[in-house]
C-alpha cells in the first residue's frame, strides 16, 4: 500500500481553519503532515502522534501535557474554545503552538482533509 503525505505549514493550517493563534506566533513555519482529532487523550498517547496536529474540544492542562508527552506538533481547539491563560502559558514555555478555530470538530477536520492532511496512521 502506498501512503503519501502532503505537508502543511502551521501558518497554512491557521489560514485554513480561520484560526486565532493563542501561543507560538514564532513557530508557524513548523511542518505538519498528520492530524488526529480526539477528546480522548489516551487515543493520542496510543497513536503515532509525533509531530502531528491535535484537534480537540478539551481545554484542560492535561491536553498540553498529553501533547508534550506524545510529541504533538501543535494543538487546535475547535468550536472557538480557548483554555485558561495558565494553560496557554504552559504551552508557551514548552514551545507548543496553540490555535483556536471557530469551526466545529467536523468542519475543522473536513477543511484539513481537503488540504490533503492524513490521519495519524497515514491514511486519508
Amino acid at each position, binding site marked *: 500500500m502506498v501512503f503519501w503525505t502532503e505537508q502543511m505549514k502551521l501558518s497554512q493550517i491557521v489560514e485554513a481553519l480561520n484560526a486565532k493563534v493563542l501561543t507560538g506566533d514564532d513557530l508557524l513555519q513548523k511542518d505538519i503532515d498528520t492530524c488526529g482529532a480526539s477528546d480522548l487523550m489516551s487515543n493520542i498517547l496510543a497513536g503515532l502522534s509525533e509531530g502531528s496536529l491535535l484537534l*480537540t474540544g478539551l481545554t484542560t492542562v492535561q*491536553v498540553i501535557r498529553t501533547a508534550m508527552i506524545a510529541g504533538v506538533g501543535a494543538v487546535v481547539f475547535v468550536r472557538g474554545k480557548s483554555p485558561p491563560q495558565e494553560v496557554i502559558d504552559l504551552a508557551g514555555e514548552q514551545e507548543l503552538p496553540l490555535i483556536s478555530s471557530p469551526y466545529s470538530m467536523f468542519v475543522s477536520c473536513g477543511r484539513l482533509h481537503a488540504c490533503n492532511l492524513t490521519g495519524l496512521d497515514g491514511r486519508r
Partner: protein
Amino acid sequence: MTALKKSYYIKSRDFIRAGEASIKIQTLLKSLNYNPQLVRRVAICGYEGEMNVVMHGGDGSLSIAINTDTLNMEISDDGPGIVDVEKAMQTGFSTASDEHRKMGFGAGMGLPNMKKNADDLIVESEKGQGTRVRMVFFIHQGSDAG
C-alpha cells in the same frame, strides 16, 4: 551499574499537576541524548501511570533508574489496589468516573498502552494493599543508542 536514579512524588487527585514528573523525566532523557523513540515510550508509560495514580490510587511515587542497558521505572501508590489485575490489563476495562472521562482519560487504555510501550511490565496489586507497576525499557546499543 546504576548511573542515575530519580524519584518523584505523585499526589492523589491532583489533576492539575498530574504528568509533571513524566515531563521532567522526558526533559532529562532528552538532555542526555537518549534515542527519541525510547524517550517517547518512557514518557508515555510514566504519564499513563501518573494519571492512573492520580485518578484511582492514593499518594504515590514515580521512580526511574537508568542503567547501562536498561531503564527501570516503578510507579507505586498506597491506594485501594486493583481487584482484578487481569481485567485491568484488558483494553476498554475501566472503573473511571465521569470526571476522569471529561479530562480525556478513563477509557481503559492506560495499562494496555503502558504494556505496549514498555519492554516488560509487571503489575503487583491487591485490594487494599496499593499498587506497584514495574517496567523495563531496553537501551539498545549502536545506532539506537543515545
